[in-house]
């Protein structure tokens, strides 16, 4: 199949999903109270975006996501580099980190509520906590993706430690690091959502949980679409950067 054919097929499939969503409830095959038609949902989304309460929730969620991200990524990257570069630290902490990494982080949520209460701090702390581990693992993998041969080549041409860092480590690690950013944002976003849906007074996750409990399906689906669009946009933005930075990868 050519590239155009693939894109066309994708568009047709998307059209089918949209049409099915619109027509099934309209034609009475599905109860419209369970699945409202897409056009109703989009109209609701437009109305919601105009409401002060929803706008505030969006800002709160965005702030939580950004702050948690800014804590988790540098912290996880520093720990990851440390366990990959320092044999001593690596030998001691690697197994512990792997054990904790395997535990579903949501079971710790009640503890975060006990420590931080219900609010901004609890969301940020929990999301940062659940994201840090994946950043640690990826950053360690990024360091290990640096080839010893390349370091040796640089040394043989008299490179200083600083030059080895900027001219070998950074370009070697960049593709993995960008992927880390992307994946950690997925974990981070998920962390904030879970924390908001579990116990919260505001935020998009809180609104979605409320709408679900109150059977407000149009609002619920509108919230889902909003979140999906934001998440996909971020993901694609980083992917675009990745593809630009790694033209050399075969």
């Amino acid at each position, binding site marked *: 199949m050519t590239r155009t054919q693939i894109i066309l097929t994708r568009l047709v499939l998307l059209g089918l999903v949209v049409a099915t969503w619109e027509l099934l409830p309209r034609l009475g095959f599905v109860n419209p109270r369970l699945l409202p038609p897409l056009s109703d949902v989009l109209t609701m989304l437009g109305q919601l975006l105009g409401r002060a309460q929803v706008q505030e929730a969006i800002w709160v969620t965005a702030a939580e996501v950004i702050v948690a991200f800014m804590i988790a990524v540098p912290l996880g990257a520093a720990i990851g580099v440390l366990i990959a570069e320092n044999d001593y630290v690596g030998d001691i902490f690697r197994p512990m980190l792997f054990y904790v990494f395997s535990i579903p982080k949501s079971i710790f949520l009640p503890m975060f509520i006990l420590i931080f209460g219900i609010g901004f701090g609890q969301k940020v702390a929990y999301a940062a906590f659940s994201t840090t581990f994946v950043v640690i693992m990826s950053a360690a993998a990024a360091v290990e993706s640096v080839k010893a041969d390349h370091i*040796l080549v640089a040394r043989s041409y008299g490179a200083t430690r600083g030059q080895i860092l900027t001219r070998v480590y950074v370009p070697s690690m*960049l593709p993995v690091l960008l992927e880390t950013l992307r994946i950690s944002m997925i974990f981070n976003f998920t962390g904030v959502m879970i924390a908001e849906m579990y116990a919260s007074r505001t935020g998009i996750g809180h609104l979605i949980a409320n709408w679900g409990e109150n059977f407000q399906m149009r609002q619920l689906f509108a919230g889902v679409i909003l979140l999906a669009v934001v998440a996909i946009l971020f993901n694609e933005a980083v992917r675009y950067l990745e593809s630009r930075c790694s033209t*050399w990868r075969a």
Partner: protein
Amino acid sequence: MQHMASLTRLHEVAEPTAIEVARLSHVYAGPEGGVPALEDISMKVAAGRFVVIVGPSGCGKTSLLMMLAGLRHQTEGTILCNERPINRPDPARVGVVFQEASLFPWLSAVDNIEFPLALRGMPKEERRRHAEAMLRLVGLEGFGGRYPHELSGGMKQRVSIARGLVQDPPVLLMDEPFAALDEQTRMTMGHELLRIWSTTRKTVVFITHSLTEAVYLADEVLVMSARPGRIIDRIPVTLPRPRTYEMMATDTFGRLRDRIWQQIRKTTQPGLA
């Protein structure tokens, strides 16, 4: 005519010594005490000579080369290059060509060649001029913009050689540079290397597993023993230069190749010798 330079090598006058290794030994720190890796290695390489080191796997030939490059430190003994000791990498005196995957995949061919110059902070235009000259020397004119994954194995090693030569060091160390290539490419690259050598007149120390390659390239072949590595034979290769593929079928070539093989066999299977 490109071999004129190498013809003059036949009448060797007393050339200055490019590399002098004296009583070099090396002991690795193993989990159960020291493991002797190299033992009492002494060698002298005259300027402009092509010396090949062969030996069984694990005999420490790569370690020896790393020490000649200043990348590793020996436990005992001295290494002089142009009469001054080597104890850390000095790209002005020694260029190194590594095994296949040593090019930086995120740099184009020409940027790879410029890498050593960029480390020294040479201005961009001057760097490019040097790199372009090297591309011409190794027969890759017009391929400078390609990335390593867009080059064949042989072309990648041409780029590596160009990178090793770009600072014009008097000594070039080569660690099994053609080991990953198929046999046909390997033969061509050996021939190309001799052409480049005869135009640049570098002192070359070349490590290989291939006996044919050793005899074909060398002025002198040093045979190393199994660990701990010692030099157990020094075989002057009397074949005239320029070398040709036809020489491989001669008796002299066969006898030299056989002598190396017998030495290696003796050291790896002492019971069968």
